[in-house]
């Protein structure tokens, strides 16, 4: 009897050993896999930690390159990056990835130091995310932490396209622009009013 009980317990343990991985995997599958997709949808996406135009010359830092195939995610990173006289930052990162029914792009950086039209701008951390889902409007989010403009702390409201006007300068936080097939999200967009300088920090585009 004792042995029979042990045998039953043993059988239960063996069953648990073989079933547990399957259960865990099924939970993951249920939680992560999307339902329905559009295999015909064309995708586009790109992210850059910084994209700056000064005196007609455009320079990017940590630019992921263009996503054109959902099976070929793109991404890059830099420990430090700078455009002399304009901007420097650390831990720059950019990536864009696609699925058959959606595209996501993300750019981030830390310790931003920037001077545009004589105004210093710093931030602890900036991040943008863009998401385009087939059949729906694009959506975006940003994280803006420790932002100062001209030495004054500025709080981001989280509302898209928060405009801050300064002498000779326009600053937009969480800039979101809907496009024909998706959205462009810039965590921070700084333009000099003379038109000579235009800097997008944490720039992500997703389209489908």
């Amino acid at each position, binding site marked *: 009897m004792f042995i029979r009980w042990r045998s039953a317990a043993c059988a239960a343990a063996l069953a648990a050993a073989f079933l547990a991985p399957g259960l865990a995997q099924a939970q993951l599958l249920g939680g992560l896999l999307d339902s329905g997709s559009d295999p015909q949808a064309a995708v586009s996406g790109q992210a850059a930690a910084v994209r700056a135009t000064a005196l007609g010359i455009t320079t990017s830092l940590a630019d992921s390159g263009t996503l054109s195939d959902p*099976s070929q995610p793109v991404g890059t990173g830099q420990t430090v990056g700078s455009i002399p006289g304009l901007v420097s930052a650390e831990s720059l*990162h950019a990536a864009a990835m696609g699925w058959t029914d959606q595209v*996501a792009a993300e750019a*981030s950086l830390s*310790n931003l130091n920037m001077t545009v039209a004589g105004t210093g701008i710093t931030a602890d951390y900036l991040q943008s995310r863009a998401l385009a889902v087939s059949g729906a409007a694009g959506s975006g989010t940003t994280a803006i932490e420790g932002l100062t403009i001209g030495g004054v702390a500025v709080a981001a409201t989280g509302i898209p396209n928060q405009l801050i006007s300064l002498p000779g300068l326009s600053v937009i936080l969480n800039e979101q622009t809907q496009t024909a097939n998706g959205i462009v999200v810039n965590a921070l967009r700084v333009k000099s009013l003379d038109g000579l300088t235009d800097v997008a920090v944490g720039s992500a585009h997703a389209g489908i």
Partner: protein
Amino acid sequence: MKNIIRILCALPLALLAGQAKAHFVPAPCDFITGGGWVIANSGAKVNFGAHGGCKNGAFWGHVNALDHSTNPPGHLKSTRITGYLMDPALPNARDICGEGEVSFNGSRFDVRFRVRMEDNGEPGGSDRFGVRLSNGYVVTTRELGPPGPAGGGGNIQLHKPNPSTTGPVPAPSEFEMCQGLGHPGN
């Protein structure tokens, strides 16, 4: 007979215990992205930006991190991603293993690294990051926390799989992916 039964019963239980500790390539594979900073035990910022995952039968990604404990800060830049794995006990976390280059006090040297990134929802304060290098450097996995002098900041996102997020077949072992480099802590 009793001894044989004892062994047979103990075996699956031992396997289960081992499984709880094993780290493996997620199936289906996926990818994780994020950036931010944590506060090291020294009180200095450790900034990071990273993405990693599986891509068409291989591992893919990039990792960079800066530790401000020194001036100038120490830099880690990945040069090759050799593994992407998960711990079943932490379904929101992924480890990225690879080879990289460290710049520190004017010198450069090669290391192996293992970073842990964990996505615990939005806006990101509960997300976690840690890093371990083969030279003994480690920042144990910790919350990004609320932005401010005492906390870090940033955001990590675990993305769902797609048809291209396939890893190598057969999936390499944790040891093969990370060359024995342990995770930076739970």
